[in-house]
């Protein structure tokens, strides 16, 4: 039996030996003696540290020593300079009948090949890491790694406005302009799913007048199929944005200039509009003077006159206020608007203009329409353009063309439509495709900018503007506007 076991041990490539409590070798297998180059007979009785380590005593980390002291199996990995090999060593204690330790079974597995491969791999991965670092550090974009909570773990190079150590470990969202924070938090939420990445343009926080704009691409990084981290790629788009803003500003200036020009056209109707209350005020005031000069002036009547003067003054002030609102040049402000109210306001501004031209403005407004989102002044300008165009077309068509109708309706639950229907001659067939070309005009005194500007305003509001000729003559201009989401 014993011989059979020896044969078995000898066939194992690991170095197997049995040592007693005093580090004396009691038994070795073939692999052991072959490895140290000493026949088994000459090894028995020798101290293991002399044979293996050419030392005078056990090493501190010797697992044979530790196994005896701890009375349990121990393992260690160590390099044997003598054999120039890495070993994984395990020592299991051997007990006598009285459960007293009498030695250990010492098994040393040569792991030199494994160690070398591991080392090569480590070196290789260090090299790759180094290369990636160089690439990252020289990339013209900002690369960040965020942990699952969105805190910054890594950044390739510092943002011009923040020091790297100022931002490491902090939530990335802190460095985004407050108004864009909800957007970014939403990106973090949404990218954690099917989506491979989400891209958005947003502004960073900063003390500058014009904080920088970045295009942010957020991608999730998975580990073992669960979300582990995020990769953020930030590209500085401040310059592009600057140009976009410049173009938008120029567009707004053209729109404004056109609005002022259009206003000149109905200056006379405004004079009429203001003359009305002015007449009432003057006549009332003079009536009051007359009443006061009477022998028995009626205080009651005097009171009524003063109240009427106040009313008329308010009315004149309101005309001026409406005009001011229209001429005002300011930032475009998208707010919730009642389209019917907007139509009514504009019709009030233009009704005198229509009357002077012997035409009438009629409205057919669908009550209770949902609010739309838009800029009041610009949308009013669209209505103004379309109504003035319609009136002019009707003047050209002669006195039979009397009514211009403005309708509002709900096309579908998400879209409101405004139709401006004139009774003029309509667009010539050959030009139905042209009304949106700049400087195209059917009017003798037109600039040809009204429709293109209206078109661009409606488009900027997410709507559409179309022109149709009516079968019975006259043209209808329709424009649609999306309703406010929370309405």
């Amino acid at each position, binding site marked *: 039996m014993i011989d059979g076991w020896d044969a078995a041990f000898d066939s194992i490539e690991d170095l197997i030996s049995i040592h007693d409590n005093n580090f004396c070798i009691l038994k070795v297998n073939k692999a052991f003696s072959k490895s140290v180059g000493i026949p088994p007979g000459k090894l028995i009785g020798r101290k293991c540290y002399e044979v293996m380590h050419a030392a005078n005593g056990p090493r501190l980390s010797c697992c044979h020593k530790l196994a005896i002291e701890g009375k349990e199996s121990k393992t260690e990995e160590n390099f044997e300079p003598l054999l120039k090999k890495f070993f994984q060593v395990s020592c299991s204690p051997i007990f006598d009948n009285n459960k007293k330790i009498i030695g250990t079974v010492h098994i040393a597995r040569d792991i030199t090949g494994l160690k070398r491969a591991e080392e090569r791999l480590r070196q290789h991965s260090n090299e790759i890491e180094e290369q990636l670092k160089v690439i990252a550090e020289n990339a013209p974009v900002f690369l960040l790694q965020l942990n699952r909570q969105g805190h910054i773990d890594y950044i390739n190079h510092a943002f011009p406005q923040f020091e790297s150590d100022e931002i490491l470990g902090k939530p990335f969202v802190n460095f985004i302009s407050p108004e864009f924070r909800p957007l970014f938090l939403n990106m973090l939420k949404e990218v954690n799913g099917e989506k491979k990445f989400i891209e958005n343009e947003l502004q960073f926080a900063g003390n500058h007048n014009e904080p920088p704009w970045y295009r942010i691409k957020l991608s999730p990084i998975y580990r073992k199929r669960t979300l582990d981290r995020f990769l953020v790629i930030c590209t500085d788009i401040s310059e592009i944005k600057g140009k976009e803003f410049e173009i938008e500003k120029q567009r707004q200036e053209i729109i404004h200039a056109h609005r002022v020009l259009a206003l000149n056209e109905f200056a006379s109707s405004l004079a009429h509009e203001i003359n009305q209350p002015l007449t009432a005020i003057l*006549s009332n005031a003079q009536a009051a003077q007359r009443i006061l000069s009477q022998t028995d002036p009626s205080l009651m009547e005097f009171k009524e006159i003063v109240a009427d003067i106040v009313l008329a003054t308010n009315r004149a002030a309101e005309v001026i206020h409406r005009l001011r609102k229209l001429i005002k040049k300011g930032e475009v402000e998208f707010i919730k608007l009642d389209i019917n109210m907007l139509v009514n306001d504009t019709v009030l501004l233009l009704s005198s203009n229509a009357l002077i031209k012997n035409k009438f403005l009629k409205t057919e407004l669908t009550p209770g329409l949902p609010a739309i989102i838009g800029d009041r002044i610009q949308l009013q300008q669209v209505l103004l353009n379309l109504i003035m165009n319609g009136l002019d077309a009707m003047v050209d068509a002669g006195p039979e063309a009397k009514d211009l109708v403005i309708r509002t309706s709900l096309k579908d639950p998400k879209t409101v439509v405004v139709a401006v229907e004139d009774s003029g001659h309509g667009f010539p067939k050959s030009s139905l495709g042209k009304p949106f070309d700049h400087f195209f005009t059917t009017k003798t005194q037109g600039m040809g900018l009204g429709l293109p500007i209206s078109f661009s305003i409606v488009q900027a509001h997410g709507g559409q503007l179309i022109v149709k000729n009516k079968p019975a003559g006259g043209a209808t201009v329709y424009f649609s506007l999306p309703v406010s989401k929370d309405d």
Partner: protein
Amino acid sequence: MSKNLPFVYIVDDEESVFKAVTRIIKSAGYAVETFNSANSFLSLQDIKHPSCLVLDIRMPGISGLALQETLQNKGIFIPIIFITGHGDIPMTVKAMKAGAIDFLPKPFDQKTLLDLIRVALTKDKLDQKRLNEKAKIQELISVLSPRELQVMKLVIKGMLNKQIAQELKLSIKTVKIHRGHLTQKLQVKSVAELVRLGQLANLKSSV
């Protein structure tokens, strides 16, 4: 009491304006009646006199200018003072040509308004007097027989009895009898008076 006061009618779609104007006119001692459209004025059964009309030239529906024309077509005589606004010059010219008293560009002074009303009322008095006279003459003429009317027209034309007899194929004696009857009916003493009557009654001198 107001029955004896001169009457001023105001037609204006602007309530604030006609209210104020009403106050001024009333304080000057006139009776005032206001209408907010041409149509409501046209539905008025009986226009009092002496009176005048203060009329906004520009109104929705029937304009002031159109109302002036309608009144003339209906043979209703009332002096009109137009209230005009900015840019109403072409309309104002038309209104003046059609016989308006004057026009008041808004805003206007009370003195100007009251002066014009005085002028208008004076004219209306004269107009009414002339109209009454005309009506009276027409009434007289209406009692003439067709033959007498024929004779009268020829007399006005300046024909002698002999010529009239020839023209109407009557005897001179018969013509003389007709002449006697008609001068009696019309209470005139001379040919000259007869001619004046004929003019006032717009009598055409054709047969």
